[in-house]
Every structure is written in structure tokens, then in C-alpha cells.
């Protein structure tokens, strides 16, 4: 099997060679944070389509949806006739990206890192791609200032008072899928002055009940969408995995919108502040 990163590398090299001379007029945005940044840069009118994860701001929902970021169909992408595609890291599959390369459509992959600097780098990359450097600089400064402000507020929380936060992705079938390190959830917990209750592994994993109670989280953090996340707090906290935790004793469950909480876009500083305030009260 050909290694995917080769193709990505090839695609990357290709992008450099074929960036358009004029600013792109028909932009396809893949990834919730990229779409948010494009709107924040005032270039929302250039967008012709979006992916399923792009659910904010409201006008984005009126754009045609080319599918899930990791399962893009080549002809669907071509059908919206983009002259520039800006995607978050992880867009795919490789076969679709290969076809887009052959169609000579400029493809920019925006690097993803779950830190404040990562957000600023994203804004820079998107600003360069759609040739709005001034707007990008202004947005970057604004977001940087907000991030600094949140960091300062969070720094006032005493080390001993730091809460252990457990991010639960899903509780399907009574089993807890929780976040370790290196995820967007881990990043936002740190930004909000919390400690990730699970730091022994990377990524999201299904946890055994005992490992969860061992982790002893003070607060449970979840996304507030329907489906399997719809379990009520009472149901959630009476699960065997969680019933013994400090969070269950105080009933501390925080639910936030998924894209707001984990998007690592222009709204992340506010999301971190919202989370910090639900952990520690007014800061």
C-alpha cells in the first residue's frame, strides 16, 4: 500500500506550484474552524460549499455540503467547481485528493495544532490562501489578545484548586470513550486551566470502568449534541464508571457545543473562558 503521506507531500508541492495569480473567487472550505476563519475574515461571500463539520456561523449552513471531511467524494467536490480548496489537516481520503491534484485545483491544507499558537497559525494560513493578509493580521491580533487575556485570568487559579477534567466523547453501550492527550479536548482543558484526568495515552480510547474511577475527575466535560450524548446528567453520573468519582458527588457536568469547544478557531478563546468559568466560577 502506498503511504498516504507521500501523496500529501506531492499534493503539497503541487499547491505551491499552482497557487492562482488572482485571488480565488470560488472557495470550498473543508473543516469547521477553517470555515469560521473565512467568515471572520469577511470572505464568506467567496465560499461556494462547505463540509459537514462546518456548522458555524449560520450562513454556512445554507451552502451545499460536500460530505464528511474524511470521506469526500471526488465528483461531489468538483461539482461545486471550486478554484481553491482550503482544508483542515486530515481531509481525505487520499484517492479523492489525488483526483483533485489531477484536476489542478489548488489545495491548501491548513496545519492543525491544539494550542493558541496553532489557532494563530491557522488564521495566517487561511489569510494567505484567500489573499486577505490585512484582515488576517487584524483577526490574528484580536484573537491573540483574547488568548492572552484568558491565559492571564486562568493563571489566577491556584495550583491546588486546579480541577481534574474528564472529556467524554461518547457513552455508547455503557462504555466510556474518553480523551487522552494530544486531542482538541486536551488542548481546551489546558487552556481553561484544568488538568486532563487521563494523561497516560494519546487520542480517544474506550475506557474500562475502573480506569475511569481511578482517574477521579472533578468535572465531566461533554459535547451537547443529541444521539448518544443525550443521556441526562443523572443517567450519566449513575453509570458504574462514574458513580464513584468526585464529579458524581458534586454533579459537575459541563456540556458545550462541539465546534465551539473543540474547533480551535476564532471563538476558542471565548470557549476557553466559558469553560474556565464553569470550572472555577467568575474569574
Amino acid at each position, binding site marked *: 500500500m502506498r503511504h498516504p503521506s507521500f501523496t500529501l507531500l506531492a499534493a503539497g508541492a503541487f499547491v505551491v506550484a499552482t497557487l492562482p495569480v488572482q485571488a480565488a473567487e470560488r472557495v470550498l472550505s473543508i473543516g469547521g474552524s477553517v470555515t469560521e476563519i473565512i467568515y471572520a475574515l469577511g470572505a464568506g461571500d467567496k465560499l461556494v460549499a462547505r463540509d459537514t463539520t462546518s456548522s458555524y456561523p449560520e450562513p454556512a449552513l445554507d451552502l*451545499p455540503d460536500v460530505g464528511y471531511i474524511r*470521506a469526500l467524494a471526488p465528483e461531489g*467536490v468538483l461539482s461545486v467547481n471550486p478554484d481553491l480548496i482550503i482544508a483542515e489537516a*486530515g481531509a*481525505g481520503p487520499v*484517492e479523492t485528493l489525488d483526483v483533485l491534484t489531477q484536476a489542478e485545483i489548488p489545495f491548501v491544507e491548513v496545519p492543525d495544532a491544539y494550542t493558541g499558537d496553532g489557532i494563530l497559525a491557522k488564521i495566517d494560513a487561511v489569510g494567505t490562501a484567500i489573499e486577505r493578509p490585512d484582515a488576517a493580521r487584524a483577526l490574528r491580533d484580536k484573537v491573540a489578545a483574547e488568548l492572552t487575556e484568558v491565559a492571564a485570568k486562568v493563571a489566577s487559579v491556584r495550583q491546588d484548586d486546579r480541577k481534574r477534567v474528564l472529556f467524554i466523547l461518547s457513552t455508547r453501550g455503557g462504555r466510556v470513550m474518553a480523551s487522552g492527550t494530544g486531542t482538541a479536548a486536551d488542548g481546551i482543558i489546558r487552556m481553561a486551566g484544568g488538568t486532563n484526568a487521563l494523561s497516560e495515552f494519546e487520542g480517544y*480510547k474506550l475506557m474500562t470502568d475502573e480506569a475511569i474511577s481511578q482517574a477521579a475527575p472533578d468535572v465531566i466535560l461533554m459535547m451537547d449534541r443529541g444521539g448518544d450524548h443525550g443521556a441526562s446528567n443523572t443517567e450519566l453520573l449513575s453509570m458504574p464508571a462514574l458513580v464513584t468519582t468526585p464529579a458524581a458527588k458534586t454533579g459537575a457536568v459541563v456540556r458545550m457545543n462541539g465546534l465551539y469547544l473543540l474547533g480551535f478557531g476564532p471563538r476558542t478563546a471565548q470557549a476557553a473562558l466559558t469553560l474556565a468559568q464553569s470550572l472555577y466560577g467568575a474569574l
Partner: protein
Amino acid sequence: MVALTETDRSMGASRAEIPDRRRQARKLSLVLVCLLALAIVINLALGASGTSLWGALAKLASGTPLDMMERVVLWDIRLPRVVLCTLVGAALAVSGAVMQGLFRNPLADPGLVGVGAGAGLGAILSIVLGGFLPVALQEFFGAYVTPAAAFLGGWGSTLILYRVSTRGGRTSVATMLLAGIALGALAGAVSGVLIYMADDQQLRDLTFWQMGSLAGATWEKSLIAGPVIVLSIAGATWLAHGLNCLALGEAAAAHMGIPVQRMKNAAIFSVAAATGVAVAATGGIGFVGIVVPHVLRLATGPDHGTLLPNAALLGATLLLGADLISRTLIAPAELPIGIVTAVLGAPVFLWILLKRRGLVDQ
């Protein structure tokens, strides 16, 4: 055994009718060839983008070069997809028919009894653990590692299934279905462990692949899957007489001069090869293997000589139809094709069960 005798009786296959059936089946083949050709043209002509097949053909005829969009959409997206879809549809339907002949039961289907799960396990193993192969070996096999692993997985599970469910030359359907469930669960469990070990990139490959989709169709995949599928289908049609004799029971088949054991091995090999590369190329696509042969048996009877080629034609046509739905229904996004075949196929499958309860209770 009981099952097929009953099938014959219920379909009234008296001696006088057999030549008539054969003529009907040939007529049906013609109709199916036309339908397949039609499906191929429609699939090339329709898609999320407005690219016109006719415009491109007119350009080709007049010697004008195609523009880039036409070249990419028709040559790099639609054509390889149609080729792969035709191959996989034919492979799934013929594998189903051969397996049903082998087990002498119309409910045997590679997807249903764990062969697909075994092939899937092989593919997952190669995606997650492929990195541990020596580099030289990886370079040598390249894109063939996953199909080969899927084939081995499919072959292994077919062999296990056959060993477990066949005693003294007689296959117990209940045992077969239960063994299939056990194999599926086992494959699912091992896959679960591997998914737990997989890194983020591998996980993405796996999820995409597990959903079953033809969106990743490339010329490379078609060229790998093509020869294997064509050879297995050709091999299967060559086994048709043997499968017909086997319907009368192994002893009877042996008396008719069929080298039963060798024939069964060849049948298992061809099912595993066709299912394996199909699963490796497109992920799990259900119900084609059970619905197509069944509909054909209802229409023109159980003779494998006509059943197998017709199954290839109808399987390809049906999968092209399902893919058309999956590509256009929610365009520009796509439905996974496994969902479409399940929605179309599961009700038919239930209807088969309802009509013919005797098939399972023996």
C-alpha cells in the same frame, strides 16, 4: 440437500420444462446484457458535476481535445468507478451463487456467514500491521498487500466454516449460520483490538474502508481486482456442472464422475478470491450475494450453467444502480453504498425468509 429438493419442487422443475427453462435463461442473459450496458452508460453520464458524456464524446469524435474537467471527471472518476463497480457487483453475486451451491442452501452468502468479516479482518490486519513488514517486502507487494491479506482472511474463514458445518458430506444450515455468527464475532473482536492499536491516520483509513464505498475507485484498484475477479468468475462457471451434480448430494455427485473434494476446494478458493479482492477494494457491501442469485433462481431455475453468468450480469447491474443512488441522492455529498444495498436488499432478504421458512428449519 432437503432445501434444494424442496426448491426444485416448489418451482415445478419437471423434466419437460427444463429445455424451456434453458431457453428462458438465455433470453434473460440477453436482456441482462442490455440492462448492464444501459446501466454502464447511465453511470458514465450522470454524476454530481454537470459534466456531459455526450459533449465529451462529440468532442472525441470531432478530434477536439477534452477540457480538463471532462478528462478528470470522465476518465479519472466515473470510468474507473464504473469498472470497479461492475467487477465487484459481479464478484459478489457469483460468490453468493457458488457458495449457495456449495452449501446446498440458498441462504449461504459470503457476507452473511462471516467470509466477508474474515476478508475484512485480513484487510484491517494489513492496514494496521502492514508497517511492520520489512520495507523491501512492502515495496515489492505495494498495493497488493491489502487485497492479498483480504483474500487469505476470506479463504481461511470459508475453510473453517466448511469444516465446522459439514459432517459426513452433509452441511447443516443452522450450524453454518451459527458458525458464521461466531466467525463474524471473532473477526469483529480481533478488528476491535487492532482498531484500538491503530494510530489516527490508520483509523481514518479503516473507518472509510469499513463503511463500504466506491468513492475511492481508481484505475490502480480496478487493475488489481480485475484479473482476480474475472478469473474467479470464469473458474466458477467452469464448476457449474459440478455444482449442479453436488445439488443431488456428494455421493451422487461422486457417482456421476465429479471429483467432489477437488471441486469443493476450487469453489472455496474462487469464492475467497473474489470476495477477498472485492472487500479489499470497496469495503463490506451486503445483500448482493444473496438477493441476486435468489431472484434468478425464481426466474429461470437452479441450473448453475445459466445461473452463474446471469448472476454476474445482474449483480453488476444492481450494484451500478445502487452506486448511482449513492452518488446522486445527496450530491455533492455521498451515501455509503453499503447503506443503499442494505436498504434495498434487507427487505428482499426478509421476504425470502418469510416465503421459504423451510430453508432454515431442517
